[in-house]
């Protein structure tokens, strides 16, 4: 599989983070972290190509759409991508649980780093609750994200689109 399908799927997810869902203020950190989980999954799955520079570009897109400082989500995306490349390969169901656990650690690390970086950027301590909430949501939704990524990888999305056209 080339990088086109993973990149496109993450691009759509990034656009979805900007959609005005009407989420409460505490949940604003959750959608970008779900995108990070998606990047992590694409990098962790064997037989897929998702270069680091694509993670950087999609992270920059998230930054632009969110109106935050350029480079913030790009750095988080790079960390997620690199962690995904080092994650245990999900060969069996048990390994998928290990991957989930691995993501829990990565999400916690990303959350702490995001809080530190955010506080450093605005030169005061930012509210940690939305970040913690977002990290928890991304950990809880990880199996769903992994399932979605595997579904896309198996070509079901392409087949569905093809069926829609014919």
């Amino acid at each position, binding site marked *: 599989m080339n990088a086109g399908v993973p990149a496109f799927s993450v691009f759509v997810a990034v656009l979805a983070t900007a959609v*005005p869902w009407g989420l409460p203020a505490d949940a604003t950190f959750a959608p970008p972290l779900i995108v990070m989980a998606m990047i992590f999954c694409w990098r962790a799955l064997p037989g897929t190509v998702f270069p680091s*520079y694509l993670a950087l570009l999609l992270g920059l897109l998230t930054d632009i759409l969110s*109106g935050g400082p350029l480079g913030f989500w*790009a*750095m988080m995306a790079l960390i997620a991508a690199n962690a995904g490349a080092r994650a245990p390969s999900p060969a069996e169901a048990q390994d998928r649980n290990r991957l989930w656990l691995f993501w829990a650690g990565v999400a916690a690390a990303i959350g702490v780093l995001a809080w530190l970086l955010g506080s450093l950027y605005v030169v005061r301590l930012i509210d940690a609750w939305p970040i913690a909430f977002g990290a928890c949501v991304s950990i809880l939704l990880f199996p769903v994200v992994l399932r979605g990524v595997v579904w896309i990888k198996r070509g079901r999305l392409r087949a569905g689109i093809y069926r829609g056209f014919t």
Partner: protein
Amino acid sequence: MRGGHSPFRPRPRRSWRAPGELLNFALIFVCIVFLVLSRIGHTALTEVSDSFLDLTAPALQATSAPVIMARQGVARVKSYAGTFSEIDRLKEENAQLKQWEWRAKLAERKVVQLRALLNAADEPALHFATGNVIADGRGPFLQSALINLGRDQGVRIGYAAINGDGLIGRTVEAGDQFARILLINDRSSRVPVLAGQAGVRGIAAGDNSAELTLEFIPDGAVLHEGDEVFTSGSDGVLPRGLRVGLVTGSPGAYKVRTHADLGALDAVSVLFFDTPELVRTDPPAVPLDRALSASPADPKVPDTVPTASAEQPNVTGAIKQAETSAAPPAASVAQTRQ
């Protein structure tokens, strides 16, 4: 990959690969450079991101449209569920409003007479453009929203943005086809306000939460829960009299609960309120003969300002002209304005 074959094949572990690791370090360094440039407010970055947002605005609008429709659908279903109780409530409210209408007409007549006696100058008309939120930009750094109105529609940086409920923020970025509104609950937002019947002066400061903090209230000022809070206009940027919210909390820790639901914005109006302060920070993009705010008697003011909706039929934002007492945005203008 298909035919029951598992996609979870074991992946050979990668060893240290110098070029790949170097690339990662280089990319992280790039991120740090971007962060530093953003922190110092480098104009090139802003211009690039503005241009990019201009490019992606149609895609964002297309993506947001079904979600907004779904949200409206859910709201409609919810409203159907309580239709009968709502009708009763509206009937009661209508009866009260009829009394208020009579009192307002009396007050209006009195104001006209007093203004004539004082030879008071007319307040300038407020022109506005209405558009839709196309992207939600709320995060740890910024509480903002992107709308599908930009410089092509006459929007400039610093204009107040309202919806049917009240003030929601002001424009802080303006591309050709989009503008970013800094919401009033953003940490960096400060709105000079008047609160209560006595018109106690203060600053409504955002802290990224749903409510604003009322700061710099004079010692001994008495406020009550439920007192109306509206803009004072003393910053020279926002018009006076825009509804902001209601006072909550206790003495020493007053809060303002905003009338507008900042988490679920849809249609938004931008008020073309030009002040010397705004002109200094963001010079007019449109010629002076298409001035956006002026006295109603000013002959240079066109009927619809500017005529973007005629020039660009695909833009959903309808440009209208409104007197300060007109209905749609004036729903956000406090009655105390007079």
